[in-house]
């Protein structure tokens, strides 16, 4: 059916279909809140920013959080001002609110997200299993500068990556960017030497152990704090390096995991399929 359709008809039809869909989206957008953006004060994010979920929970338990029409009275929740560098022992100690959501408030999402990446990497391994990496006969070795340069850069990149995920709760970034940075360093090593291959079993062990570490942290929370993925460490003062409880731990696990995973995927994907 499709195979005989002229290209032109196909394109026009595609434009037509996609166009209607997009118009539909825009018609929906016209009904969005003012300025097409969410008013933070009308969302649960308000409590995440204010680190106020405990007080909201208190109101919820008392039955005053929702009114009779089931509208949440989010702006009525009492608020304790937070000062950077001074407020201590908050319910969540991360200065970076996005991080606090990613790892703490919605930590379960992140566990799933890590799993997705892990599964994708495993899937790549499964699909590409048994592919031999052939080194082409016509070898074009990179220059010595490239070889040395990538190795030097790797150390720096590794350090930077570690910096990014250790400071995840303070600055933009976190486990995923940190891991990606580390993986890019390893990618550099691939460029530096033809036929380079990282230690596969090492990567696998790293990956598995860090993933297990994440789940174990969750289970420690379950045992210690009676809830899976609950923070079991003191949160410290907001803005300190040693604050925000288990966020740093989790980000270290995630960073190592993502770094090794992406490297493993890269390694698996470098397959020479050309005939030489």
């Amino acid at each position, binding site marked *: 059916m499709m195979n005989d359709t002229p290209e032109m008809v196909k394109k026009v039809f595609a434009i037509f279909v996609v166009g209607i869909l997009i118009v539909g989206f825009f018609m929906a957008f016209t009904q969005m809140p003012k300025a*097409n953006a969410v008013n933070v004060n009308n*969302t649960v994010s308000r409590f995440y*920013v204010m680190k106020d979920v405990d007080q909201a929970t208190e109101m919820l338990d008392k039955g005053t959080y929702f009114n009779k029409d089931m509208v949440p009275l989010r702006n009525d929740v009492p608020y304790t001002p937070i000062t950077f560098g001074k407020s201590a022992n908050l319910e969540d100690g991360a200065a970076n*609110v*996005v991080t606090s959501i*990613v790892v703490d408030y919605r930590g379960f*999402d992140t566990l799933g997200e890590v799993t*997705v990446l892990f599964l994708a990497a495993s899937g790549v391994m499964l699909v590409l299993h048994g592919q031999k990496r052939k080194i082409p006969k016509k070898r074009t070795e990179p220059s010595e500068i490239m070889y040395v340069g990538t190795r030097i850069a790797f150390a720096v990149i590794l350090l930077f990556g570690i910096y990014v995920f250790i400071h995840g709760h303070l600055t933009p970034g976190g486990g995923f960017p940190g891991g990606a940075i580390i993986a890019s360093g390893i990618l550099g090593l691939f460029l530096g030497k033809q036929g380079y291959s990282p230690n596969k079993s090492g990567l696998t062990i790293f990956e598995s152990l860090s993933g297990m570490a994440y789940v174990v942290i969750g289970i420690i929370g379950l045992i210690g704090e009676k809830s899976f993925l609950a923070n079991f460490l003191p949160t410290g003062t907001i803005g300190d390096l040693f604050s925000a409880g288990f966020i740093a731990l989790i980000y270290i696990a995630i960073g190592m995991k993502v770094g090794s995973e992406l490297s493993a995927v890269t390694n698996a994907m470098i397959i020479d399929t050309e005939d030489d």
Partner: protein
Amino acid sequence: MIDFLQNWIYLTGAMALVGIGLYIVLTNTNILRIIVGLNIVDSGTNLFIVTIAWHPKSVMPIYTATNNLVVDGHVVAADPLPQSLVLTAIVIGLGTTALALAIAVKIYQKYGTLDVRKIKEEDK
């Protein structure tokens, strides 16, 4: 007024990406291009998500010594929740793309083509 326009611009951009991506998926028969198309759709989605979280007057949702997120009991930061969602969405998109590429490599080896019209089997 300018605020109003700014968000519309981003939304239009997001929708344009989604539209372009879908168009590519619908019209290109090459697997790699289809994967690229899916990636563009993903980008559009991500742009949409961060757009609805953001307001021209909002500040970044990170506590620093100078950045005050709450003024007069009202949060002035950009909504951090969609931002954390977009992080997830990006990673998921990455995973899907990696897997799709791996399958594409394998398909090329086994079928000798990347044309989606030729990737089908007669019943055995």
